[in-house]
């Protein structure tokens, strides 16, 4: 990609000026690319058997690679966009993402997948999931609010914190109505992390954690969550007892991963994967594919790659030259870390089953694009710090 871009003379002069390629966090870029390629192979393996029944076994992989291409382009853009104009445009981005979030409710546009009315139909059979973009918008908007005037005061005012909480709560409420519990948990973690790192008073942090716990308990007690949501959330506790639909997935996923052993059955050779025993193993249960076919060694490599990405993100957050950059990086860390933990954890049977993808790995175009935007934003924060330091 870099070659084709570099052929444009305007781009080339820009690159020389800023030393863009020299100053990039190369370890982050390579780790993210490697994770994406690894993921594509897993998606291929998971979808071959399903697609073969309808003709072209590679059709799903091809579609996946198209979204990878779009994701890389968006990431490049996110890393290059000017810091100040990004801050200026953030309110518009936020409002746009809220509008996008509401679109699935419009009849004829929205689609319900796995019980969640959270997708927008596009022509050509593609769908997009606006809540993925909402994660980016919430991070940017909270970072703007909590980094105002920070060269003067040490901690954000109560008013700013309240506003930031409101910024997170609005999309959370919409997504709750759409039944997308997994994304709600991620947004909560992201908001909490940003408020904590912004330096807000400790009582805010403690209060918000307490509030979240009480909120979840009340929701379950009052039956605000639908029965299947509770069942999904609790089936991970003892899946072998009851082989109903909800627990079936968790059980099959664990059998697949456990059967992988040290080195796995080999790519395209996993009996659970190729026999299509694990549902949605190209997205929500993608970890079962690496677990079964490449064993503990392959799983550890994948987790290591994700670990490298998060390590670089933490370094970028520490070295950020202003609070805004740090908070953006913090939001991305919380997002990617918690989403990866939730996704892999549910395949491993230590987290409740919620329908969220593994960043950069799972099939699912919107997630791929949003995650590459996140990687681009991390690079942007780094480039800003390098230039300020130079």
């Amino acid at each position, binding site marked *: 990609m870099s070659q084709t871009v570099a052929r444009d003379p305007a781009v080339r002069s820009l690159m020389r000026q800023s030393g863009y390629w020299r100053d990039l966090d190369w370890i982050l870029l390579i780790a993210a690319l490697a994770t994406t390629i690894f993921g594509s192979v897993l998606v291929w393996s998971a979808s071959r058997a399903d697609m073969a029944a309808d003709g072209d076994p590679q059709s799903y992989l091809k579609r996946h690679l198209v979204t990878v291409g779009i994701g890389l382009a968006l990431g490049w853009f996110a890393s290059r966009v000017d810091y100040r104009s990004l801050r200026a445009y953030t309110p518009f981005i936020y409002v746009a993402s809220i509008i996008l979030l509401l679109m699935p409710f419009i009849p004829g546009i929205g689609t319900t997948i796995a019980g969640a009315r959270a997708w927008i139909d596009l022509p050509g059979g593609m769908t997009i999931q606006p809540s993925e973009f909402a994660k980016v918008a919430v991070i940017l908007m909270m970072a703007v609010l909590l980094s105002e005037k920070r060269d003067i005061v040490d901690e954000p005012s109560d008013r700013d914190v309240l506003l930031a909480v409101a910024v997170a709560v609005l999309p959370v409420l919409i997504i709750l109505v759409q039944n997308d519990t997994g994304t709600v948990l991620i947004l909560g973690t992201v908001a909490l992390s940003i408020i904590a790192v912004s330096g807000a008073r400790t009582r805010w942090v403690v209060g918000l954690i307490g509030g979240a716990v009480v909120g979840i308990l009340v929701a379950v007690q009052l039956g605000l969550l639908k029965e299947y949501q509770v069942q999904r959330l609790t089936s991970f506790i003892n899946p072998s007892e009851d082989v109903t639909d909800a627990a079936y997935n968790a059980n099959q996923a664990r*059998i697949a991963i456990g059967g992988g052993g040290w080195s796995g059955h080999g790519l395209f050779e996993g009996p659970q994967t190729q026999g299509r025993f694990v549902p949605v193993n190209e997205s929500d249960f993608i970890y079962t594919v690496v677990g079964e076919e490449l064993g503990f060694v392959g799983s550890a490599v994948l987790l290591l790659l994700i670990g490298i990405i998060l390590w670089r993100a933490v370094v970028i957050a520490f070295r950020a030259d202003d609070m805004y950059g740090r908070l953006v990086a913090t939001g991305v860390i919380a997002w990617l870390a918690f989403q990866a933990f939730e996704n892999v*954890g549910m395949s491993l049977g230590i987290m409740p089953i919620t329908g969220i993808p593994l960043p950069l790995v799972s099939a699912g175009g919107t997630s791929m694009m949003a995650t590459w935007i996140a990687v681009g934003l991390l690079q942007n924060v780094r480039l800003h710090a390098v230039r300020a330091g130079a």
Partner: protein
Amino acid sequence: MSQRSNLRLLVLAVLVVSLLATLVARSFYLQVLEGAEYRAAAADNTVREVAEPAVRGLVLDQAGRPLISNRTTVVVTVDRQALAQEPNGGAAVITRLARILDMPRDKIADRLLTCGAEGAKPPPICWNGSTYQPVPVATDVDTQTALSIMERRREFPGITAKLQAVRQYPSPFNVNAAHMLGYLGPVTEEQLDEQGQTEAYDRLRRTDVVGRSGLERQYDGILRGKPGVTTLAVDTAGNVTGTLEQREPKPGDYLVTSIDARLQSVVEQQLVAAVRRAQSQDFAGTSGAAVVVEVDTGRVLAMASYPTYDPDIWIGGVTKRQYEQLMDDSSLSSNAYQGQFAPGSTFKAISTAAAGNDNFDLYGIYPCPSRVKIGAQTFRNFESNAYGPISLTRALEVSCNTVFYEIARRMWQEAGGPDAAVDAPDPIAEAARTFGLGSPTGIDLPGEASGRVASRQFKYENWEAKKDAWCRNAEEGYPETRKTNPKLADYYTALDRENCTDGFQWRAGDALNAVIGQGDTTVTPLQMAMVYAAIANGGTLYQPQVAKGIISATGEVVEEFEPIVTRRVDASKRTLRFLRNSLPGVTTDGSGETPFAGFPLDVLPVASKTGSAQVTGDKAATSWFAAYAPANAPKYAVVMMVTEGGTGSKTSGPSVRAILEALFGVRGSSVNPGASVLVGGAPLERLPAVRRDGTPVVPRGSDAGVPDIRAAGSRS
């Protein structure tokens, strides 16, 4: 930045590390420490497919009338999985079921055993499907019984009564068409082998029923549709643990044929009438066939074979005994495209084309004596008639053998006589081949016969194959026969000695036999219909087709079949024009005159050729009548044949006339297209319409052909 922010970021980093560490540790625990246990669990996991066959597509005639449709029947099935949960393997349930169905208990018990299991009866009694598939134990159960089974769920665990589609033949106008329509049967071992190992959900399964003959077989893939398949996850104990996938069945497409039910009915009746006519002349009239094709497309409008059988016998499976009986009287194969017969004088049209190709003067005068002598042999005319010097047209009209003998003798001489090389030119055989004889026409029906063209080459190959036996017999001198009849043994020995030494020789007698369609040449009646269609349309030999198009079960046109040209026959325009100018004379002034007495030939000229082919032994001749009409603008060719039937003119001629009358709406001496058996006087240009619910739009009133065509056409 503030200390507090740094500290909290550090806490977040530690949290992130611990989350990842948790995942790695949990992975290690599951995969390495407990791996073996999960490997065993994975091995226990298997999938089972439960397939539900799709409703087969209908077969329609050209006007949309169903020739094959489906009716629903109530089938009682037993789910052996559920039965196994009952005390004593459900023995009490089976007893109750036998009582309510009023059938022997053992019959149900036998049916429930998987083929190959201990004590299982041979198929089709045993069950050769999947363990997870409910086993049908009774069909055509009356609704009352079905309802009481379904109402008493607790007494009949695992027993279901459901509706299932089976084939039925609505028989508009009482058509039979059994050979063309074909029948269904269980999938064969060969078909399963041929398919090989495949996971495709629409693969053939052991329980599938497929087309075994006729259109049902030829277009099986189109008519069968795609099955509905439910994929279940099953553990080692055989318990269903989940549903992995569910596909709805897709009903089969409809096949539209070019057959017109009403015309087919007329042709079938007329064929039987011709056979009766033969029998009334004290001939055996053992078998027969009739074909009607469109000369400009090669589409088959009607095709009948005698004897035939009732297609309904296949419904619900035929017993071995019934099958053997059918095989014995050979009514299972169609004489129209699977029977091979000497063409007799209908072959003379081809001989005339051969003469034209070999530069004989088509407009010359040829002597027609009552007999010709070649060597020691005498070859006679039919009934030893002599007509003196006549034109070739007249020779065709009166079917003068001796004129054609002379032509054949000259060709034979030219090629080198008895010493000619095997590949010496043979205009007669070449003309026969260019008109499609000796190879299958390619009709869209399975099992077509190719017929045979007598030639030097054929004779040589035949000799190669048989000479060892001939020479050995000549050597041994038939010792067994000699004991009782030394004279006959001498005769056989002499014959075999001659065959042994000279059997490869294409002699003058062979050439003379070949030119009048006798000897070793055999054809199918369908081939002959295509020959006369080619003459009629100016020399295009079509590949005959029964199927005209495909319509989906929801009424969309899937495909329309175009006419297929096999080749342009190798005969000059001049020769073909000569034939077209000559053949109408057969009907007005020749051997076809008698059956067409009183027919309005001035309005509707008919070209024809008769044939009375001699067969070995003292059997009566094979009666042939080939015709096309209108002779000046040909539309249809009609060929009829009756074995051991007598002359073409007396036995087949009147039936061909009746068929033409029905086709063109001839009433007495007037022609009224409105009276044609074809609705609107001609076959439909387009495919007939099928409604979205799958019912075909059929002609109304008396044109419908059955009292309640809607019911007959409905799929439900």
